[in-house]
């Protein structure tokens, strides 16, 4: 199954100037520039070559770099990752695409038992500079297995870096950094934001492990990542109308976590709300809350809140908007931490 590609995405031109582009174009540019910069970089995945990927993220790259560097792989996710492990043994830096979030599970063993461990297993002798790109998250009205948020599985797995991107600049810079990193990096791309636009400066570099404060505020800290960063910022604007000042943090790196940035914020605001699309049970929000409690228990003025997908499989498209955290559910949770009237009291 594919989602409708946006015809507006075209292969970005090589440039170091700031340009307005979609996140999809920014990712395309990052891959192109990485292929250009390092002959050991190669891309591998299903339909990424001739088709340019079902989201067109790799559009034009096979024509430009050839079928040996932009490899259409057989239809087997374990093979995509396992083959890349072997290539990494031989000095290559494979960038693997998993076509949709829900298709990463057949590759689970290769990711958690091989990619994540070979450096440790070999006492540091072998490096696994793989980048594993996964379009993730819901909100696009798709059929089953096309809207998932499997990041917690990988954040729990030692030996992986797990990062998310939230806007075109972040997407460009993070993808470049991920490919340059000598460790395996899983990059979760929020597919419903692929067509969001922003300024991109291709000379800007990112580091892979820090969160960023996107908006400062004083009443509560709102932590989001990936697709919900935009939602969180919108919630902060809406909260302002209600006289509530929210500090918005884009977590960016899900593993390792940037606990310091979160803790510093919570120490100032005394309140914490965490949001993501994945089910809440044993999730990133569990961890962010547990960490914040460990790091700044004495500063917390109310119980932290989470606004997440429910503990159900991803539901049919017709009800996904009820499943996905939106502005109202976030503000309701903010109200709870602030002791303001909220849904649970109203009920």
């Amino acid at each position, binding site marked *: 199954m594919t989602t409708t590609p946006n015809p507006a995405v075209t292969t970005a031109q090589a440039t170091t100037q700031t340009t307005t582009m979609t996140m999809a174009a920014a990712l395309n540019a990052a891959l192109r520039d990485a292929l250009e910069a390092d002959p050991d970089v190669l891309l591998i995945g299903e339909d990424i070559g001739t088709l340019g990927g*079902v989201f067109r993220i790799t559009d034009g790259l096979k024509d430009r770099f050839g079928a040996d560097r932009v490899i259409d792989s057989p239809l087997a996710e374990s093979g995509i990752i396992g083959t890349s492990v072997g290539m990494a043994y031989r000095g290559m830096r494979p960038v693997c695409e998993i076509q949709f979030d829900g298709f990463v599970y057949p590759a689970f063993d290769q990711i958690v038992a091989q990619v994540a461990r070979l450096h440790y297993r070999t006492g540091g002798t072998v490096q696994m500079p793989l980048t594993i790109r996964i379009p993730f998250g819901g909100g696009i009205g798709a059929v089953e297995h096309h809207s998932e948020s499997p990041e917690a599985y990988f954040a729990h797995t030692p030996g992986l870096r797990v990062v998310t991107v939230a806007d075109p600049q972040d997407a460009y810079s993070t993808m470049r950094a991920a490919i340059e990193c000598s460790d395996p990096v899983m990059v979760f791309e929020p597919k419903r934001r692929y067509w969001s636009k922003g300024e991109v400066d291709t000379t800007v570099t990112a580091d892979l492990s820090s969160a960023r404060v996107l908006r400062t505020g004083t009443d509560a800290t709102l932590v989001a990542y990936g697709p919900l960063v935009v939602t969180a910022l919108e919630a902060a604007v809406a909260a302002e109308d209600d006289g509530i000042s929210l500090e918005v943090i884009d977590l960016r790196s899900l593993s390792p976590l940037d606990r310091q940035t979160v803790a510093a914020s919570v120490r100032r605001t005394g309140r914490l709300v965490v949001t993501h699309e994945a089910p809440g049970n044993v999730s990133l929000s569990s961890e962010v809350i547990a960490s914040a409690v460990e790091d700044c228990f004495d500063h917390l003025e109310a119980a932290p809140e989470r606004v997440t997908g429910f503990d159900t499989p991803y539901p049919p498209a017709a009800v996904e908007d009820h499943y996905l955290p939106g502005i109202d559910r976030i503000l309701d949770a903010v109200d709870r931490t602030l002791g303001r009237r909220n849904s649970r009291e109203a009920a």
Partner: protein
Amino acid sequence: MLTTTSAPDHDLVAGLVQPLYVLAEDGTRHPDPTLDPLLRDVDEELLTGLFLDMAVIRALDDEAVALQRQGELGLWPPLRGQEAAQIGLARALPSTDFFFTSYRENGLAWCRGVSPGEMLSVWRGTTLSGWDPFAHHMATPQVIIGAQAHHAVGYAMATKAQGKDDIAVACFGDGALSQGDLNEAMVFAASFRAPVLFFCQNNQYAISEPVALQATVPIALRPTGFGIPSLRVDGNDVLAMRAVSLFAARHIRSGKGPMFIEAVTYRLGPHTTSDDPTRYRDEEELESWRRRCPIARLERHLEQLGTDVEQLRAEAKRRSLEATTALREAVTTLPEPAPESLFENVLSTEHPGLVRQREQFRAFRNSLAPEQADGQQTEGSSA
């Protein structure tokens, strides 16, 4: 190169170079010593029945594509071009044999009496799954490529353990041949002599990828390496499809273990309504396969037999209209799921966490202004 003279001592079957067929492209009957005995019952009624089935599912398929274009469906995976493969199989097996399919087998679903609404709801996004698998002896579409093959083998192992003689059918595409699961399923099927039919519709593509990427030799050769006998058949020849299906089902039901059919066919439409096939294949190739249309081929054959083809066409039109009208009606009357339904059937037993989450959800929705609760909560824009 090394070779040996003696053949292996198991049943190896492969029509590798030229797929089996009994209808030539021009509709003439081609004799085949193996399939002919299976075609003895073929009469005009049977042939026109197959014709009408194929015509109706093509019409249904086209209508679903139209509905998607009109925004009534989120997505649709067209089967155009694969009608003979699906009808030939479905009409050869008793309705109690159990299908485990992927998403493109709506022709099978049609033959199994799946209603238009049941067929569409998953593509409209109102359910994750359209019908009761037990009512139709057909599992609902499997999206994870290859996963259903294991299910078919397990089901077949169970029918055998229960001493029953119904069989299971695993349906999948050429792309699935690359997945570990599909290959593992052949190991299990061979080891346990499971009464399962592996049914591959080789429609030449897995989205944009040509079959040559998944298999450098004919697909029908793969199962032989697992000890599973295999047939390669012209998937656009509905008579041959029916005959090999009868042949395989008889083999399997007689306790001889699994069998494999590769139906060589072609997907004339896009992978799904989201796909742009012009990016990966050319008009010439497409045209050559359009000329091999399974419906036209059977029509030519019927013509040669002296059937009143005009009248048959009219009947096909009438039935198609009936079916597409029902489809169109069904799609707009499909019940919208209640928001709270998303908490249902996670487990069949109680889950306190979900009970609490549903309560909170209810309270949250009650707290919203009526127009919000009715429709959707405020959503983040997608810029």
